[in-house]
Structures are given as structure tokens and as C-alpha cells.
């Protein structure tokens, strides 16, 4: 509701300001428009599961080429009220949770720089759980075709309605930068086929510490989410033939609740960026208070070297979940404890690595063409980051992708 209202407000003000801008360009440059986008094509070598960019996509790519995985368009307006105060509004159209490409208001905030190194932003803000996490839709700003799904794929929170503060301090030949954020999610997440998990009102808090020195950047970050709604397990079970005959699942296994439970995301990021050479190394750990989702660890390393306008890159990523004892139903029920609960938790299992080879070609100013192949090698139980796995799914998949990224 707030999103619709803000979007309407944006469209109304943008058409006005656009007209104003053209009329007053010579005297007033306080409003500027920018955009970014990707035209992408993706296919895989098998139909036993569908490949998605991240878990915000309800369905994915199979053996025929599809544009829905990476194609998107974003438009942004920056409005300068003074040298230190700015408003930013961004709308993105991409294939997302409800299966549509309806535009989403991804950013809408007011920023004030109290000093050149202390800023406050309030409004709708992109989340930055991991390094580079708040620009993962801007293909042109990234070397690889898409952020490694092993690492970023389970991140379904793109933005919050809240605030953040950031500050920078010079220390020992480098810069120490910190940010804290807090807010409520306005989003929803695909849960099972045709069912979505409402995340509205989920509390997100977090922050990071960066150290930058020369070509190096190191980041430690932590973020956590408190879920504000139960996952739609009953709706999901009804689709599977209603094995509980209408009895709410959480009556039987209350321990599997998500409401008011936390998920905690910790990560370490390291970037070495020296002239033509760029190396990224990141590790993360996700801990779930609820046993409904398995805890996980992931990491990736990516190296790229620029030769003229062409930048080949390669990467390896890995994701793995740990398996804990499952909660029992009260009173004990054989089918619930041995079939239903294990199969619900098993949906979040991961044990896979991905080998990536690709190239970026800067064909024109503000335009890059990319081609990438990902070889996913996993166990048959590794299903969290794919959609609709069939019994024949063996964990292996090769993904072919092409993309044209641009900014304007």
C-alpha cells in the first residue's frame, strides 16, 4: 500500500520535474535522471530443475532460452535540495516474487550529509547484507553477468523502509567506514509453487565495518531479520494433497514456527582491485533460530583481468547447509515426524559448488556485453537454489547466459 502510494507520488512528481528540468535546464541542474538495465538470455542443459538468479524469482530457466532471469530496467531520479541534501527515487521492473514484471519502488529516500563523512538516509533503502549486495541488480557495475547465486541467491530482501547512518574515518594509512541500518520489509517471497510468504513488517537490522587501503577493501558485516508472518506451510501442504486433512501444521509441530524468530547473516568480504586486476573473496554464514530452515555457509572467489576492452573472469562458489535434529510433533505422529517435517526442512538443503567462466566486453561507453557459463555440481539433495526440482534432479546443471548491460 505504501509502495503503491510512493510509486504514484514518484510518477506524479517525476513527470512534473522532468518537464521542469527540460524547461529550466540552463539555470537549474538540481534534478537528474539516470537508468540502468540488462537484456539477458539464459538457458540450462537440463529440465530436471529450474535455474533462478535468486529466491525472489518464483520460476526459472530450463532448456529453452528465457529472458526472465536477468533482464530488467531501472529508472532513478536524484533531486538535490542543497549541496548536502538529496532525494533519490528508483523504480525497477524485473521478474519477481508474484511472477510479474510490475515496477517496484526499490529506493525512495532523503539523504542528508551532516559532514562530508557522516550521512543519514531515511525512507526506502536497498539492503546491504553483503558487500556489493545493494547494487546486485546493476549489471553494468559488476564484472560478472550476475552475482554468484551460491552466495547471494538466498537473499530475498532487497529493500527496507527505515533508515541508515554511515560514517568514514581515516585511520592508519586507510579508511574505516561503518554503516548501521534498521527498517521493516515491505516485500514478499515465493514459498512453494503459487504460494508466497508475506515479509511485510519483518524487522531488518544490521551494519558493517569496512577497511579500505590502497587496492584493498575488507568488510565484516552482520544483519538479522525477525520474521513478522508465518511461512504459508498449510497452503503449501494443501497443494501437495492436504496430508493433514486441514489440521494446521504448526499445531502439531509448534517448534517449526517462523513468526518472531530471527535469521542471522554474517559475512566477510575481501576485494583486491588494482588497475586491470580484480579479485573478490567472500564468505557468509546464515543461522536460523527456527529449525524450519537449515543453517548454511557459502563462499566464492572471483578473479578478473582486463585486456583492453575485454575482461575475462573466472570464479568458484560453494554453498552448504548443516543438518540438525528435527523437532518432533506433539503428540508424536509418525507421518509428520518421518515424512512431512523432514521434507519441509529438506527444501532448504544445499550442497553444491559452481564453476564460472565468463567475459565482459565494454563495446561502447556505458554498455557492456557479457557471456558466461556456470557449471553447477551438487548432490541430488541440493535443491534450495533451484525451483521445481523433479525426482530425476541429480544436482548437476550447466547454465549458459548472455547479457547486454547498460546505464544511461
Amino acid at each position, binding site marked *: 500500500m505504501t509502495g503503491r502510494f510512493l510509486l504514484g507520488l514518484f510518477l506524479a512528481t517525476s513527470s512534473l520535474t522532468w518537464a521542469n528540468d527540460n524547461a529550466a535546464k540552463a539555470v537549474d541542474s538540481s534534478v537528474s535522471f539516470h537508468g540502468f538495465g540488462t537484456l539477458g538470455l539464459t538457458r540450462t542443459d537440463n529440465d530436471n530443475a529450474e535455474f533462478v538468479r535468486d529466491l525472489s524469482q518464483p520460476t526459472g530457466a530450463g532448456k529453452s532460452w528465457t529472458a526472465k532471469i536477468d533482464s530488467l530496467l531501472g529508472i532513478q531520479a536524484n533531486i538535490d535540495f542543497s549541496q548536502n541534501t538529496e532525494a533519490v527515487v528508483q523504480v525497477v521492473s524485473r521478474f519477481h516474487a508474484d511472477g510479474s514484471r510490475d515496477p517496484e519502488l526499490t529506493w525512495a529516500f532523503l539523504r542528508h550529509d551532516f559532514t562530508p563523512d557522516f550521512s543519514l538516509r531515511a525512507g526506502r533503502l536497498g539492503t546491504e547484507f553483503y558487500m556489493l549486495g545493494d547494487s546486485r541488480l546493476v549489471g*553494468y557495475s559488476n564484472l560478472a553477468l550476475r552475482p554468484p547465486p551460491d552466495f547471494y541467491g538466498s537473499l530475498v530482501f532487497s529493500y527496507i523502509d527505515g533508515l541508515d547512518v554511515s560514517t*568514514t574515518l*581515516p585511520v592508519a594509512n586507510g579508511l574505516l567506514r561503518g554503516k548501521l541500518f534498521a527498517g521493516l520489509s515491505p516485500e514478499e517471497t515465493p514459498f512453494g509453487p503459487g504460494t508466497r510468504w508475506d515479509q511485510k513488517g519483518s524487522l531488518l537490522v544490521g551494519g558493517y565495518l569496512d577497511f579500505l587501503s*590502497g587496492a584493498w577493501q575488507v568488510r565484516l558485516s552482520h544483519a538479522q531479520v525477525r520474521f513478522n508472518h508465518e511461512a504459508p506451510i498449510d497452503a503449501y501442504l494443501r497443494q501437495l494433497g492436504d496430508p493433514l486433512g486441514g489440521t494446521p501444521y504448526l499445531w502439531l509441530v509448534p517448534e517449526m514456527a517462523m513468526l518472531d524468530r530471527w535469521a542471522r547473516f554474517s559475512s566477510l568480504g575481501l576485494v583486491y582491485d588494482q*588497475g586491470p586486476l580484480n579479485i573478490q573473496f567472500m564468505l557468509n554464514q546464515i543461522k536460523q533460530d527456527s529449525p524450519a530452515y537449515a543453517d548454511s555457509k557459502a563462499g566464492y572467489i572471483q578473479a578478473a583481468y582486463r585486456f583492453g576492452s575485454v575482461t575475462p573472469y573466472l570464479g568458484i562458489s560453494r554453498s552448504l547447509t548443516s543438518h540438525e535434529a528435527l523437532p518432533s510433533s506433539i503428540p508424536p505422529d509418525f507421518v509428520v515426524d518421518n515424512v512431512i517435517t523432514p521434507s519441509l526442512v529438506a527444501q532448504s538443503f544445499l550442497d553444491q559448488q559452481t564453476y564460472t567462466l565468463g567475459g565482459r566486453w565494454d563495446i561502447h*561507453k556505458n554498455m*557492456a556485453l557479457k557471456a558466461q557459463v556456470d557449471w553447477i555440481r551438487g548432490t541430488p539433495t541440493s535443491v534450495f537454489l533451484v525451483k521445481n526440482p523433479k525426482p530425476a534432479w541429480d544436482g548437476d546443471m550447466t547454465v549458459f547466459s548472455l547479457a547486454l548491460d547498460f*546505464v544511461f
Partner: protein
Amino acid sequence: MRPFFTLPLLLLALLSYAAPAIAEPVIVVNARSSVTQLSQDEVVNIFLGRYRRFPGGGAATPIDQPEGTPLRAEFYRKLVNKDLDQINAYWSRLIFSGKTSPPRSAENTAEVLRLLSANPGGIAYIERNLLDSRFRIVMELR
């Protein structure tokens, strides 16, 4: 006989004309500023928007040469060994995540000098032959 003289002269003229294209940018501040010297890291921090303060604490306002000028390409190549595509990709990340803005891009070289002389916290890179008493060199790129 004449063409034999004019051809080398013409070549010489062309060479000397081409020379400014590989000019060495010098980094200058407004002469009213108290800043006398900056390290390469400090210049990187200011121009890439990581930390826009001078060592004494004053706010630093970087000014870019116009887009598409050889001096701009040369400056970033010498400063961080990156070409302008890489610099554009860097700024697109920051612009679309609502962070720092890139340096103000001047319309032409004369505007660089005008903006710098009007702003005590300004910092720019210019060709050495444009140096005058309004500006002070704080770093040279080799």
C-alpha cells in the same frame, strides 16, 4: 626541392601538436587553500568519493575535466591505472545505490579553472601550462 623541406616540417608540426594529448596532469587546489601537498591515496579518496576531506579537515570538492577529454582518461589511468569504462562502472554502482555522487564534470577546461578559482575547497587536475597564481600544485602524477 620545396616538398623535401615542408614534409619534415609538417611532421614536426604534427608531432608538437600531438604532444599535449599525452600531457601530464598536475593536481591543483585553490591557492587560498592551506593544503600544500597530498598523497596519491588522498587524491584517490577524494576523486573516487571515499573520503572528501583534506588532511587538515576541510571539505574537498573534486572537479572533473569534461567527458571524453584525453586529460581525463590520462588522469585516471595514472591515478588508479583504470580506463574510463572501469571508472564509469565504479560510479554506476555508487549512483544506483544512492551513495556519493561523482565529481562535478565541467563543460570545458575554462570552466574547470573558473570553478576551482571560485571554490576554496576545490581540487582539480589540469595541464601544467594552465597553471597560474590562483592555483597550487599539490601532487604530480608520474
